[in-house]
């Protein structure tokens, strides 16, 4: 996660876009806002290393780590209108962000060490987005104006092994396995939105995904990537369940050992996360909570 910091908010438009952050002492590092929160989402400050619950409309700071629990999601809206959705059981950080609308200069870097995610390129000021990179433990994904999803870890293995192109015999590492799926826009996209693509680099290999539904699986460092292959509807549905916005159960499910305590690590902090009260790693259950997109006790207003 320790990458060169390239955050810059230059030009009047950038200032205007960031006007709401003027009261924040961390103006230079703010890259976006928490746009929607569902269930348990923790932010670990890059500078303080302290964990705190995510709050709707709170600024997203460069290199802060997002940690989500089971059946939990966070949507981050970056200043260039790129949308990054973090799914269940994830660890994610925005580690590079350049946004200078005066020069139409944009660049984004995100690291995903675990969990599911969805990336949707932004179109700030009516212009297509700049280059963006999403890194997983085994793959680097170069984004060319598109929507794609991925999952890192055990869920990637679980989904991929049911795909005909992969199967159960592939040796994978649960800390590294990455499944990446392009969603669109495809070649038959309507309106003035052009087709998008992603270039996935795994070791010395580079594979381009340029049609919706194409997937690539990288099981571990040193192994060649598998694909591209068309993901099955069952596979896509399984991936979607980690990013799901329905009220149905799913979203990754609760794993043995509990994710919630791990979210806070050894920080030993007290935090009210959605409806779950966490005290020094021990938690008392409260009734299920509403997502923070609507009015919520955790909302700033």
């Amino acid at each position, binding site marked *: 996660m320790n990458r060169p910091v390239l955050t810059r908010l230059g030009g*009047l*438009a*950038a*200032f*205007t*876009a960031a*006007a*709401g952050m003027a009261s924040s002492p961390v103006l230079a590092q703010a890259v*976006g*806002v928490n*746009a*929607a*929160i*569902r269930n348990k989402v923790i932010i670990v400050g890059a500078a303080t290393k302290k964990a705190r619950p995510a709050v*709707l*409309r709170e600024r997203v700071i460069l290199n802060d780590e997002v940690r989500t629990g089971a059946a939990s*999601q966070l*949507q981050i*809206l970056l*200043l260039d*209108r790129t*949308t990054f*959705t973090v799914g269940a059981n994830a660890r994610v950080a925005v580690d590079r962000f350049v946004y200078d*609308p005066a020069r139409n200069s944009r660049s984004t870097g995100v690291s995903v060490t675990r969990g599911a995610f969805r990336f*949707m*390129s*932004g*179109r*700030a*000021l*009516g212009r297509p987005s700049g280059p963006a990179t999403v890194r997983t433990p085994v793959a680097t994904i170069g984004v060319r104006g598109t*929507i794609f999803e991925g999952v890192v870890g055990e869920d990637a293995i679980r989904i991929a092994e049911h795909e005909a192109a992969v199967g159960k015999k592939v040796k994978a590492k649960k800390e590294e396995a990455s499944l990446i799926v392009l*969603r*669109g*826009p*495809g*070649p*038959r*996209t*309507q*309106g*003035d*939105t052009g*087709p998008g693509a992603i270039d996935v680099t795994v070791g010395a290999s580079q594979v381009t995904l340029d049609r*919706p*539904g194409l997937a690539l699986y990288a099981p571990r460092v040193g192994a060649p990537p598998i694909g591209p292959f068309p993901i099955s*509807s069952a596979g*896509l*549905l399984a991936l*979607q369940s980690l990013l799901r*916005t*329905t*009220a*149905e159960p799913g979203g990754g499910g609760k794993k043995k050992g509990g994710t919630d305590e791990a979210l806070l690590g050894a920080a030993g902090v007290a935090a009210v996360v959605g409806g779950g009260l966490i005290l020094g790693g021990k938690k008392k259950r409260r009734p299920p909570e*509403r*997502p923070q*997109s*609507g*009015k919520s006790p955790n909302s700033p207003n």
Partner: protein
Amino acid sequence: MVRMLRLLLGLSAVALLSPAASAQDDPDSLVTATRQLDSGVALARRQIAANDLTGALGTLERVLFAYPEVVPPRLLYASLLCRLDDRQGAELELGLLAGKAIADSDWAGVTAACGAMPRPPRKRPKR
């Protein structure tokens, strides 16, 4: 001092006229609009009209975080996926609406974007 004030006023005016300053483009406004169902869907429709299809998709995703059981935004979301050439994704979204009542007018929007699509059954299939 007066010149400085004039400069600041001028800059403020430019900022207000700047596209970035519009209610539709400011991150806080985009988030606030999606805290209510109607204003969120209205924002998505404005983004669609402005050809910002991925922006509209992000807006509807936020709406669906808060209102996962409401049918019209999910239909609009599925329509957008079709317009972005993600028919497989659209079919999965529509599959989530099995057992829900869908207004003919709302369904017409889906078929306009997607062409012929299997309409989700009114009764949820038995598992």
